[in-house]
């Protein structure tokens, strides 16, 4: 870990990089294409004049080496799990094994067309069939669909399944409950699924307030969407009671699987009353986050809800071959083209196969151990609103208000030490949400703890260093207000080039 202090050291390594449009050289091209081997079509004859473009759009023109430099320089202006400790709470930024990248890139997977015959796709179908089983087993539920594209897409699929279930019983239940600590996607999902989100209060100890829950659950309630362990990093021991309260009114329990990394092989959602859940493969099963995606959001359901799953579903036939089964009349239908984020699901399969049952359990044990260790090392220096033990992440509050230092200042200062800031200001005001994951070494955890202690000291003694942090990046804090007020979302010829205002 670098001991960088105030002054930029990176200018030479990561200079300002012009936009690709500012590097264009007419006539340059990074690709060579074969000469035509068929007679050219008579364009004016085969395409109506009114549909023909006069000229191709003004895409940039650049040679291969300059193209490589451009994107390599951009890569260097980016914190990543491979380069930096990344304790971003709720996001499970664990190590992404290299072997998974290698297997997902095998031409026998990447070169498959989704509409090629099943007989030509037996290997990938077998993989998907097995993964479907693995995910159901880890969830303690009956069946899983691999179709959803991301966690939020999985939530949407899950709520649609819940709606379809109630409708099949002749009921339309308009309300979905979400704890006040829920991810923002939960209430947004309710709305796009035509439901009303109703917030359930948490107790001062961070757990669901059962009295408030009892008050709000009725025959109009479709489900409660819960995250357990919750976003404050706390397992809710009342989970069985929560399930019972819902089930007594005919409502279902939905689990947001964002925090599955805390309970793999230790507790299964299906065993503690969950009816429907989604996974985030990019959190729990180490598929890379890719600057925002692609992820995958498989959904698992309890016995009795399988018929509502989206289709098609991968199946094993009596003759031992694999194929796609088309969904029945009660299925919610299709939630995307084709079958799912296959390239991502291959990585999840490889991860589960590599670790096996004991390895998965150790993932959660060491994730929880690492979080509790960091909390123990920091408890004298920051305020902890909730009592330990914590799950795979924890919340703490920097209390330096009298020095004018906010959680944002602390987070930005971490960047100077080559550490990615934790999640901020949510679900408790002014907090930092820290999730180390199981893959970090003790040396990295200790380095982080010492850095956090040093920053706490700086907050008291030299707060101005924090106000102006980070000091070591290619850019300083941004004018985000102007960015939103006068949005510039697309480069135009008239856009001012970088160096015009570059006064460094």
């Amino acid at each position, binding site marked *: 870990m670098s001991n960088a202090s105030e002054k930029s050291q990176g200018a030479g390594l990561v200079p*300002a990089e012009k936009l690709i449009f500012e590097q264009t050289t007419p006539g340059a091209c*990074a690709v060579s294409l074969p000469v035509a081997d068929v*007679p050219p079509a008579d364009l004016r004859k085969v395409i*109506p004049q009114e549909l023909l*473009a006069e000229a*191709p*759009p003004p895409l*940039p023109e650049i040679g291969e080496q300059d193209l490589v430099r451009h994107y390599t320089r951009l890569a260097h202006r980016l*914190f*990543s799990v*491979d*380069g930096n400790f*990344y304790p971003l709470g709720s996001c499970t930024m664990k*190590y*992404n094994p290299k072997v998974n990248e290698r297997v997902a890139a095998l*031409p*026998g*997977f990447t*070169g498959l*067309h*989704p*509409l*090629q015959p099943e007989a030509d796709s037996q*290997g*990938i179908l077998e993989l998907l069939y097995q993964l479907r089983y693995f995910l159901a087993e880890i969830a303690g539920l009956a069946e899983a669909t691999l179709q959803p594209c991301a966690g939020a897409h999985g939530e949407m699929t899950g709520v649609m399944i819940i709606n379809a279930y109630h409708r099949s019983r002749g009921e339309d239940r308009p309300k979905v409950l979400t704890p006040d600590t829920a991810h*923002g996607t939960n209430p*947004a999902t*309710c*709305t*796009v699924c*035509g439901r009303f989100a109703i917030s359930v209060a948490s107790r001062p100890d961070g757990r669901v307030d059962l009295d408030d829950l009892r008050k709000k659950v009725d025959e109009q309630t479709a489900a409660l969407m819960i995250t357990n362990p919750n976003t404050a990093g706390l*397992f809710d021991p009342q989970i069985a009671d929560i399930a019972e309260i819902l089930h007594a009114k005919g409502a279902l329990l939905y689990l947001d699987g964002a925090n599955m990394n805390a309970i*793999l092989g230790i507790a299964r959602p299906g065993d503690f009353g969950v009816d429907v859940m989604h996974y985030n493969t990019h959190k729990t099963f180490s598929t890379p*986050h*890719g*600057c925002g*995606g692609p992820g995958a959001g498989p959904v698992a359901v309890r016995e009795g809800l399988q018929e509502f799953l*989206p289709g098609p579903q991968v199946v094993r036939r009596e003759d031992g071959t694999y194929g796609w089964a088309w969904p029945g009349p009660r299925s919610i239908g*299709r939630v995307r*083209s*084709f079958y799912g984020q296959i390239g991502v699901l*291959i990585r999840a399969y490889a991860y589960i*196969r590599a670790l*096996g*049952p004991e390895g998965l*359990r150790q993932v959660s044990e060491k994730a929880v151990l*690492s979080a*509790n260790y960091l*909390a123990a090392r920091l408890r004298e220096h920051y305020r902890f609103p909730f009592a330990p033990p914590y799950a795979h992440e924890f919340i703490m509050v920097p209390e330096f208000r009298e020095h004018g230092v906010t959680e944002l200042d602390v*987070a930005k200062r971490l*960047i100077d030490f080559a550490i990615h800031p934790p999640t901020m200001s949510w679900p408790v005001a002014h907090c930092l949400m820290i999730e180390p994951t199981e*893959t970090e070494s003790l040396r990295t955890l200790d380095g982080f703890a010492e850095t956090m202690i040093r920053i706490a000291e700086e907050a008291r003694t030299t707060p101005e260093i924090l106000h102006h942090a*980070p000091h070591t990046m290619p850019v*300083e804090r941004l004018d*985000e207000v102007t*960015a*939103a007020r006068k949005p*510039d*979302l697309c480069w135009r010829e008239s856009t001012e080039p970088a160096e015009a205002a570059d006064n*460094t």
Partner: protein
Amino acid sequence: MQYTQLTDADVRHMLDTIGVRDIGELFRDIPPSARLDRPLCLPAPLTEMELLADLNRLAGNNTSVDDAVCFLGGGMYDHFIPTVVDALASQSEFVTAYTPYQAEASQGALQAFYEYQTLICMLTGMEVSNASLYEGATAAAEAVLMARAITGRRGVVVSSAVHPHTREVLATYLKELPIDIVVVETLDGRIRPEGLRQAVNDQTAAVLIQTPNVFGCLESLDQFSAIAHGAGAIVIASVDPISCVLLKRPGDLGADIVVGDAQPLGIPMSYGGPSCGFMACREQFMRKMPGRLVGATRDRAGRRAFCLTLQTREQHIRRERATSNICTNQGLLALRVAIYLSAMGRRGLAQVASMCLDKAHYAAQKLSDLSGFELRFQAPFFKEFVVRTTKGVDRVLAHCRSRGIQAGVPLAPWYEDLADSFLVAVTEKRTRAEIDAWAKALSEV
């Protein structure tokens, strides 16, 4: 295998620091009734060598485009991907970073997405693009939700020649919302102005048109835009991004929102995903657009810098008042698209588009020499067309398959009245020899 690095001694030290005897104590909030009292029933762990053997076996038990010549399309295409795209997009900083929330430490990703947005605007002829959505079908569904939010109306008109997966996804998304879908039927592979005119009314929020459509036929987007706008509806065009360099861009033909699947732009097919959906719109609708947006601004020292912006549209701020629950973009794939478009450039992509058009027309021309095969529709097409046969679609495709050729996609599962037809896609990758072999295989049936 294990990807953890903590040794037994580390674990002991950590437990002592925490002040507990064993790791089990850290799980005391989980009541015994909720615990799993046995190991998960999963296969035993594998070493790296064993894992590679297993995955090589599974990959080897498929027939890829390297093993059989691919004339399959229908939403996903075997286009050429320059090596430089794989090399640059697999740089581990791009692969292992998260959503660029921390702008100072994420300028690389933010600049790449700003460039992606600009490239999509150039290609579609629109003013604003988001930083990508899941894939083409969900992008179209999100566009319909967006049009509903813009107009406050409750109907959507969809051509029956919009890809069936897109229409199915739309039906799934709209099932829970008070929006009616009206389908306009086609004649000779395309919708007709009179059909559209009858379908739109003052409650039509949007008209969704795909061009080239699922049959490969080009629709008269300009005419349809005029009809839709006459009724005050939003025009959503779903397009093949490669066609946009040869054909007039949807933005120049009246579209208000342009969506599509960016898979042709440097993304491997990977059995259908992951892909990348694009969405661009006119500036006036910017604040109703779902998904991440990257904007250019200045840092405190006045340098150009990039950040996520207009976040008050998004779910983490709006929560239940949001009109989309989309959380992130398809970052790494949007990056691939940006690299691909920059590598190809203006001339390279135009050449790719011309090659697709020439080769597809060369292949279609071949049909005139074959008895029992004909072009199903007479409408103009770009790289994909429908073949009708009297010889039985399954038999034809099985025979070609035995000759090492995936000759087309049968249309029976999608359109009952096209049970005698299959869909053929010809990309720039197909050589004259391969096309001749395809025609020869057809002639042998």
